């Protein structure tokens, strides 16, 4: 399996580590109620089909990627930087 990192191009799976669904990007506000936090922390769908998930290019550019992967076929159709260059300064 390979992922096309927007910074580095197509790279081998072993350069990446996985962290679950991309819903982790949507951090609730500090004053959100505990039910929202519970949802954010623990509740995940288990879709059969395309889903967005987070991968860390730790052995490459250290970017976090949002990757669209089909859980049925393992086909990776797209990958985006969690923090595009335009969005911040690193």
């Amino acid at each position, binding site marked *: *399996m390979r992922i096309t990192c927007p910074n580095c191009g197509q790279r081998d799976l072993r350069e990446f580590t996985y962290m679950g669904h991309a819903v982790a*990007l949507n951090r609730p506000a500090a004053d959100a109620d505990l039910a929202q936090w519970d949802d954010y922390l623990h509740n995940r769908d288990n879709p059969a089909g395309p889903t967005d998930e987070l991968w860390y290019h730790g052995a490459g550019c*250290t970017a*976090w990627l949002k990757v669209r992967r089909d859980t049925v*076929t393992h086909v990776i159709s797209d990958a985006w930087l969690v923090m595009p260059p335009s969005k*911040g300064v690193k």
Partner: protein
Amino acid sequence: MMRIRDIGPAVSFTWDGKRLQGQVGDTLASALLANGQRVVARSFKYHRPRGIFTVGSAEPNALVTIGSGAAQDPNIRATVQEIYPGLEARSQNRWPSLGFDILAINDLASPFLSAGFYYKTFMWPRSFWEKLYEPFIRRAAGIGALSGQHNADHYEKAFAFCDLLVIGSGPAGLAAALEGARAGARVILAEDDARMGGRLICDNALLNDAAAGDWVDAALAELAAAPNVTLMPRTAVTGAYDGGTFGAIERVGLHLPHQPELPRETFWRISARRAILATGAIERPIAFANNDRPGVMMASALRSYLHRYGVAAGQQVVIFTNNDDAYASARDLEGAGVQVTLVDARADAVAPAGFAGRFIAGAQVCDTRGRMGLRAVQLRHGDGRTEWTRADCLGLSGGWNPSLHLACHMNGKPQWDEGLSAFLPVPGMVPGLDYAGAANGQYDTAACLAAGQTRARAALGDLGLSLPAAADLPKTPQAAARPMLPLWQVPGKSRAWLDFQNDVTTKDVALAARENYTSVEHMKRYTTQGMAPDQGKNSNVNALAVLADVTGRSIAQTGITTYRPPFVPVSLAALGAGAQGAGFAPQRFTTSDAASRAMGAPMIEAGLWYRPSYFPQAGETHWRQSCDREVGYVRNAVGIADVSTLGKIDIQGPDAGAFLDFVYTNMFSTLPVGRVRYGLMLREDGHVMDDGTTARLGPDHYLMTTTTAAAAQVMKHLDFVRQAHCAQMQVAFTSVTEEWAQFAIAGPKARGLLQQLTGQALDGADWPFMACGPIALGDVQGRLFRISFSGEMGFELAVPARFGAALFDRLCDMARDLGGGPYGMEALNVLRIEKGFITHAEIHGRVTGFDIGMQGMLSRKKDFIGKAAASRPGLLEDGRELLVGLRATNGSLIAGARLFTQGSDAVRTADQGYITSVAYSPTLDASIGLGFLRNGRARMGEVIRVKDHLRGVDILAEVCNPVFFDPEGGRARD
């Protein structure tokens, strides 16, 4: 059996210690056949004598052991192993000898050894399972054995990339590879065999009115000359995986005399944009009584041994077929002077033109004789009449199974084709993989060549390559094959073998069905059909046809078992190449590593790092003596420890402080420049991730330290928080762990040592506890931090890593002059436990800030990672297991022990907590420890029971403040 044509110079090898002659180009199988060696193995369960059955990699019988001593390789297929001078081969699964095997008694006991025998018989008593039954069964039923010694042989892993991977080099594969070569694509042509050409080099076939081998040679020459083509003979593609990745095993040194520097095998990962499966087809046998005798072979194998190896496998050969392909074997053997009888199960069959031998249509072979080698076969004619006829070799052809295994590796199911009586791959089973030739049910050479060309052109077109006009394919003789007659088994009373390797017979399959294992997957597991190293390549389809028959279903309804990687056996040594010994994991060494080892320090692993355990001195006979002495250095004089392995993250930018406020529970934006603060870091779920000190080196410049164990995890976490939640911040950070060598200088004389080293006063006014700043050591710009992990007056001095080794030596010398010296991890651990400082033994992933008594560090003024979750009610209850100190009142504490109320039973329901770290404290002369105890902070002074069921510890301990020594912390301050 005899050699009728020489194929190369003589090569001598040994078989069961006997010296034999083969020829260059022989496999072990062809050489054994040429030497008249009929029995080459004993079967798995019944220990029946067995001979060579096939010519290629699907061989079920002829598994042998190659080599001896540590390097012996068991279960090598004699049909794959090439011979070389000095090759040492031995038969397996026999005692005392291949000719006389005591356990052949199993064959007489066969009525009791049917499918499911073990499950039904060896049930009671349970205590016999591991001690008696398993060792006995393993000895009785078996194949080759490993040496049990360390194998120093060399194996490798490698990676390859291509536009077009062609799997198999028969007519379809060669035609496909030629298209790729001419289109300028990067092509890999992988072939399991030592020689490329597939059936073209095994048949007496014509291409362009000349020997097919001439065309093969020309094609290979063109491919070899193309810079964009890689030819990989002796390379079996073993698996198809996601994203166009294929596994392959290459025999690099297995066919040569042992050369230590040459890898035995290389495991390849091939990344291919497109692939063509041109793996051909595997001929299937027919089941009838005693069809497993030495001398019974596949009909096509007889032809291959004849043409490729110059070996006639028999003098009186019977060919039993249900299709036209075996006619070629009959004709060719006859042409070589062998007496051939051709038995065709089809009633309307007609003798092939020019065949002079006996031809019988509408008949079947129904039994055989000859325990140590075939002597006669029994024929049953169409009218029911039977006769015995002499034969030393029987060639079987029950049709062909396309070799489609790789296409099924990603869950795809092949489809049954009624016309061909075979399973065929369906498009799209593996993305990017297409099929050509016999692997796709196209059996004649012209169709193979055309399919190879067409499918390759389609794949190359998909890749956007511009293709030259298709070249003319070689001319093939006209061939019109008549339809085959499906024939899986011949009725009879005696055992008829399906899976030769696992000794599964038609009776076993019928028994499985009777016992309601009617699903093909259940039948497989109950009978072990297809579960041997050959994975049932010859037998799976036959077995499910028999199952379909006894269950009254069609083959399509019965379905096929799942094919999984690897396609051929892959040695674990190749899969794990490079990963044994020092290659198992990367090793990280500090700048003081050589000096520590020179002082005799045993090194222990800390993550990937190696750190000194202790520094033994003359006269010390136990590590505790060294450890206690080193603790004394720090408590009474000065000790030196390398702390470079702690993670160091350099954080800069106008928002550096705000970023730290967000990742730590406490405030860092308010930290003055030149000061250090202890920080607690949570995961978003409210549990502790890591802790450490962070120094403010400038207004926009911080240096964070992490624990050694969590350095990588923290870096990944910071990257996530920054990129996912703090994109607007102006902050940047990078790991500088390797850039700096850092040493702890701890003890009452630490300041004195540093004054001497730096020439500076370093007094409490300028350098108070938790101060930091630059410091010059001559021309070297270092950093000094006044922090302590021992509770004593302590500094940590950092210099660029290239000065680390020199600084360590100097610090050790100076410490010795002051009555101290270096201390290792054991002493470091004792010192921190005496002070109640936590490590990942305590913050093991299930504890909160509340649990470790740091709830006061959870800021109320700001948001931070883990804040919301840490405030959940359940995480703030006194009944939780809370950090406490423990002091043994009798005996020694042990980490991992469980805690119980004194007087209660040591059972799970009464569990009150556990111990995480223990030490003998020379300072207090006591066995002390840290642990977690329910409502522990309210139980100071209570005596509790410490019980470790595993290691037999049952003592009492007093609950106390986790800070055992100097609870006010005055010693670290001025």
